[in-house]
């Protein structure tokens, strides 16, 4: 029962439009810092572009996808009209205003601080206020997801919450709590300095606050992709979900262990004690658990589809899978990239191994492979799957869709594999210019060039994606039917309250945040000798 299609379409179109723009910037950045170009002679342009690329790809794009998908899930899974439609539009417009407010100073070169803020670098205050508005807009969505679930529960006491809505609300709670870290950093530390009320800032404390957000935000980005694995893929390829309970446990595990692990981003920072770094490192290892559960469950579900289609033997079911189906293709590509990216992640989270790749291009390669690869390709799949239901029209040509997914997969591998490699060779990240004539960097020149070519393959794929979505609006009208999610092998009749509600797990998430973060934050906040003078961007 998708009633508010306009709302969902508005979120998706805005998300994909800004994604297209940020993708152009990304390809340009890869090109100008590669040996294929003589360089723009101005590092400020590079950082300006990088700030815009990161802010859009990190905050605006995935948040809008999660929100749009969340509204679609609420209406189709709960079979009820969205409660709080006006608030939902208010949240959307807050994001529009926030994104524009943030991007104007960035475009003017007044906020080239990168999306991770990097105090003591301080940009124009409107950049930060814009980001805060984007977050506030998304918090409206969080509240609406919770309220809609509550309304449904009241009308359907003792019924199990559909897995897709359970996961969607878990994702929204995770986002609500993880955004608090960056919000505290912005409101208590950065914005007062950007307004000129203070001229010094505790950069170490700011980095700890940001690490609170920085890791769990990745799991917030990932939630729509995982929801698609569990609730779209088995249905789309003609199979059944292997286990509904496994899905619930995976999302619960994400909710609990995604938060208390962010300090692994500050392994090289002196302001955090080694003991806490170890605790966070150990807890980071736990996030592999829900991912492994998911990979197992989804592979089993896909195998069910293969066998239902007549596949026999140990591997025969693989050949019987509907490889012409874009969703099948997307999930296969996504898993391959998730596998490589996850293996790389094990190196990042290990306190000792991290030292060899910390602050190198390996890290940028890693998060592009995981987010841009494994996750974003599932965003494409979600859009393709939902589009006929949102527009009332079929996708123009499945061959184009498959070509787009192939290009994205190949482009991402060509971009990120050499990117990892130059990181192992020691090429530092966050630099606008590399002097490839220097013997220290010269061996990396070839790999960087290959990586830049990959960026253009990604650009072509991204533009093709936008073209397909736009063309779909001009297709003849068709009746797509009700939007449904996959059914589990065994019908879900009775779910224990603990797996049907979020209370225990939200409490555990907050509890673990307190145990793992309170001491480092409070000791830094209590000290008076840790602030440094702010460095204002473009100030004279």
């Amino acid at each position, binding site marked *: 029962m998708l009633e508010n299609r306009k709302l969902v379409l508005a979120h998706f179109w805005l998300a994909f439009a800004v994604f297209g723009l940020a993708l152009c910037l990304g390809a340009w950045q890869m090109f100008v810092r590669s040996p294929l170009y003589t360089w723009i002679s101005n590092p400020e342009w590079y950082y300006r572009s990088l700030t815009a690329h990161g802010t859009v790809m990190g905050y605006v794009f995935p948040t809008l996808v999660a929100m749009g998908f969340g509204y679609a899930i609420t209406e189709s899974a709960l079979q009820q009209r969205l409660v709080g439609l006006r608030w939902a539009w208010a949240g959307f417009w807050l994001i529009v205003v926030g994104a524009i407010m943030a991007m104007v100073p960035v475009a003017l070169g007044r906020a080239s601080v990168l999306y991770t803020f990097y105090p003591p670098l301080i940009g124009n205050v409107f950049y930060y206020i814009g980001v805060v508005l984007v977050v506030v807009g998304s918090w409206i969505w969080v509240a609406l997801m919770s309220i809609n679930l509550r309304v449904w529960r009241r009308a359907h006491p003792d019924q199990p919450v559909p897995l897709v809505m359970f996961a969607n609300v878990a994702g929204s709670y995770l986002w609500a709590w993880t955004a608090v870290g960056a919000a505290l950093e912005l409101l208590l530390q950065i914005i007062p300095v950007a307004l000129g009320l203070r001229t010094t800032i505790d950069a170490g404390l700011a980095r700890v606050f940001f690490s609170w957000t920085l890791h769990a935000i990745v799991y917030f980005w990932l939630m729509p992709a995982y929801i698609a694995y569990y609730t779209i893929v088995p249905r789309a390829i003609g199979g059944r979900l292997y286990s509904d309970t496994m899905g619930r446990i995976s999302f619960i595990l994400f909710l609990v262990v995604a938060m208390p692990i962010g300090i692994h981003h500050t392994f090289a920072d002196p302001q955090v004690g*080694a003991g806490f770094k170890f605790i966070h490192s150990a807890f980071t290892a736990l996030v592999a658990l829900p991912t492994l559960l998911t990979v197992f469950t989804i592979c089993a579900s896909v195998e069910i589809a293969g066998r239902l289609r007549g596949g026999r033997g140990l591997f025969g079911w693989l050949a019987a899978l509907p490889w012409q189906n874009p969703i099948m293709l997307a999930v296969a590509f996504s898993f391959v990239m998730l596998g490589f990216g996850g293996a790389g992640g094990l190196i990042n989270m290990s306190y000792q191994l991290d030292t060899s790749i910390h602050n190198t291009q390996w890290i940028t390669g890693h998060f592009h492979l995981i987010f841009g690869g494994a996750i974003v390709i599932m965003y494409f799949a979600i859009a393709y799957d939902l589009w006929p239901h949102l527009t009332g029209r079929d996708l123009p040509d499945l061959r184009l869709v498959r070509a787009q997914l192939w290009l994205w997969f190949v482009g991402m591998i060509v971009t990120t594999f050499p990117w990892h490699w130059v990181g192992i060779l020691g090429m530092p990240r966050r630099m606008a210019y590399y002097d490839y004539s220097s013997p220290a960097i010269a061996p990396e020149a070839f790999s960087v060039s290959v990586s830049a070519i990959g960026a253009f393959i990604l650009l072509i794929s991204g533009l093709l994606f936008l073209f397909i979505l736009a063309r779909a609006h001009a297709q003849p009208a068709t009746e797509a039917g009700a939007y449904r999610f996959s059914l589990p092998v065994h019908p879900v009749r009775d779910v224990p309250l*603990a797996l049907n509600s979020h209370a*225990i797990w939200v409490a555990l998430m907050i509890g673990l945040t307190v145990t793992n973060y309170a001491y480092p934050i409070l000791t830094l906040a209590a000290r008076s000798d840790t602030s440094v003078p702010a460095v204002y961007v473009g100030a004279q």
Partner: protein
Amino acid sequence: MSTRELFSFRNPYFAVGVGVAAGLFVLTALAGFILLPYAQPELKFAGLWDAICSAAGLPRRSIAVEAPKPAHRLSEAVLTPTTLARPSQEAIGRGATLAQRCAICHGPTGISRADSPNLAGQYASVIYKELLDFRSGARTNAVMSPFAANLTDQEITDLAAYYAYLPRLPAFHPVQQLPKPRVVIYGAPVRGIAPCGSCHGSLDNKAGSPWLEGQSEAYLKAQLQAFAAGQRTNDISQQMRNVARAMTPREIDGAAAYYASQPPEVVKATD
């Protein structure tokens, strides 16, 4: 099941969830705060509590040794983007009167004929910082130091306001504009040299860094050499000393000649 029953240890999900989380925390804390500190033989602890405090990141006072005093005075100037912003007409007027005594070297219009820096239209923060440094002894010069020695804070602020107010006249010794040398455009990242313009105005301004266009070639070269040799030490955090030390003599000549040949109107305007 009510909320009370949900949050009860009789509920196996709650018991297992809390138990595993708490157990893991205790286990990793024991490893991180006790086992690992002692596993590093190079770390010496007075006792268990000392090891825990160290792993928790509690800063410890080192044994009371006086920090070594630098052989030279450091700059004490504090600059923010609002230092000296929007000067009054009176301040500019007072600065003009005070500037009479500077004219002998820096020229009556702030344009030097004596290989001293041109000051007309220089950023106020630069005049302010250099005068403070000359006064405190962080920067020394046989001619300039005595002039600055007796200036008051007010006089320094007024002089900064006046010189920043003067129009940037074309350089006194204009030569044919030279092409940008490599070190000016790109710096040399591998040697830790940023492009000159990333602080000195053509790309970005960093508070306290002067614009250099049209300055005397001899002056620019002498300053780069003084930074490289460690004779001039009033750069904040040794930024210019680190850059100049890594430059080759040829790069120093090229950068000085390039900036001397540029007209000041190419300097990025600031508000």
